[in-house]
């Protein structure tokens, strides 16, 4: 049965959803803190250190400040769409986490609980679909602001994301040729048994990484919010927590794309050099989640490292890189991978 109702399962999944969403919110919150600390270290400063020990309460203070700020809705903007924009950005950012395998099975109250909300057989395509939805939040918000700078930021975001989605999709095709499955869970299981996909797809990973930077609007691709050209880009007219949602969704996107990259290319919850079968299932699951989180933190650090190292591209450079370098490179990678798969499987 496709739609049979099992209430225990629904409760289990609901708890899992709440845990995953709140965990990604908390991680995104502390990523903002980490970003400021990493920036401080790279620029030889101290960074935020007033709120709480080592400044650890800084994200709470920032959030509180945003909540107490005055809400301003521009006079000529479409009010519904103006509010819909940040809401959509947040929604699409969180939705991706549904198909990610966070760990192996856990045994609790005589139930075997999969640490994955939905293991659908088109997992990676689902992620791709939700990511391609993400641009609507920015576009709708920027249009509803009724501001030229916002609109320019939104248009830049749209063309940038569409351009880089192509290269990302083609690099994914090469990966799918190697794995032969679209389910993220199966990919992790394969990598646990064999080698990590990065060994088979180093070029594919590089292309995917660059495109992930562009899809998250991170420096060096943060053209949609380039402050010295567009004031604040697509969120110029936003204030209070609506602005907070836009900024926050960027950090959630960063977290989720780190998770996806770790899952696709670096074995997901697989701990290297450790045989998970030696432990009881619960301990193995905890080790798995810890391994995944370590990889994710390393990726998030990479995001920040690049942000404070490489300056922003010019717009024509961005398009040149996307269309004339990344797409041909991804096509070449796909061709080589296809030939190799054909040759070795014979």
């Amino acid at each position, binding site marked *: *049965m*496709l*739609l049979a*109702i099992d209430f225990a399962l629904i409760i289990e999944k609901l708890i899992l959803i709440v845990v995953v969403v709140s965990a990604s919110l908390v991680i995104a919150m502390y990523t903002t803190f980490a970003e400021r600390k990493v920036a401080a270290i790279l620029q030889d400063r101290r960074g935020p250190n007033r709120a709480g020990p080592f400044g650890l309460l800084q994200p709470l203070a920032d959030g509180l400040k945003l909540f107490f700020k005055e809400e301003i809705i521009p006079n000529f903007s479409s009010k519904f*769409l103006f509010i819909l924009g940040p809401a959509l950005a947040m929604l699409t950012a969180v939705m991706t986490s549904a198909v990610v395998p966070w760990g192996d099975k856990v045994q609790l109250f005589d139930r075997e609980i999969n640490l994955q909300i939905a293991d*659908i*057989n*088109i997992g990676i*395509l*689902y992620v*791709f*679909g939700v990511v*391609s*939805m993400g*641009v*609507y939040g920015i*576009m*709708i918000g920027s*249009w509803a602001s009724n501001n030229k700078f916002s*609109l320019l930021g*939104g*248009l830049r975001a*749209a*063309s940038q*994301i*569409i351009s880089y*989605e192509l290269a990302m999709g083609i690099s994914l095709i090469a990966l799918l040729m190697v794995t032969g499955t*679209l389910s993220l869970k199966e990919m992790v299981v394969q990598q646990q048994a064999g080698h990590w996909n990065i060994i088979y797809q180093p070029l594919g990973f590089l292309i995917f990484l660059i495109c992930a930077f562009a899809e998250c609007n991170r420096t060096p691709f943060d053209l949609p919010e380039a402050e010295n050209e567009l004031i604040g880009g697509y969120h110029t007219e936003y204030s209070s927590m609506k602005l907070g949602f836009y900024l926050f969704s960027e950090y959630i996107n960063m977290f989720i794309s780190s998770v996806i990259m770790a899952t696709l290319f670096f074995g997901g919850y697989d701990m290297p050099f450790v045989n998970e079968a030696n432990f009881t299932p619960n301990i193995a699951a905890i080790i798995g989640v810890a391994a995944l989180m370590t990889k994710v933190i390393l990726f998030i650090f990479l995001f920040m490292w690049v942000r404070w190292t490489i300056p922003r591209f010019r717009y024509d450079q961005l398009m040149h890189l996307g269309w004339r370098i990344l797409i041909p490179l991804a096509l070449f990678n796909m061709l080589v991978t296809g030939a190799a798969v054909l040759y070795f499987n014979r």
Partner: protein
Amino acid sequence: MNITTFIFILLSVISVGSALMMIASKSPVHSILWLIIVFFTISGHYVLLNAQFLAVVNIIVYAGAIMVLFLFVVMLMNLNAETEPIKNYRLQLVGILSGGSLLLLLVLALMKIDASHQVQMKVGDAGLIKVLGMTLFKNYVLPFEISSVLFLSAMIGAVIIGKKEEKSAN
């Protein structure tokens, strides 16, 4: 009424309703947003028919790429209700006539449907990626490749049109 029927009716109401809203709304941006909702509900119908691959590809291609480009163009040209030209009365009449005849044709075709050929919900594997791939690349590989050449020619045409404009501007 089981839950599948309930979801089917809900999805159908939303999709027909937002399709009507898409036609009725004055602002082109609102029309596009309604159309995006229509695509989502159609994807929902695909899921009900156990065709997850079609559902997600529908979202990626139509809602994720084509509609973004539509929105892009409409926002770039800054179309809104005030700048929309007043349509010709005769054109409206012709539109009503042609739309009405299409509706008549569809209704006549629907009246002839045999009740035993009902759509089978949540069974069948025609929409799953494996079956679809086998069908496309084994049974129908020639039409598939020909249609890809068609796409390629369309792409080249677009590039040529874009190039020409650049030259005349210089």
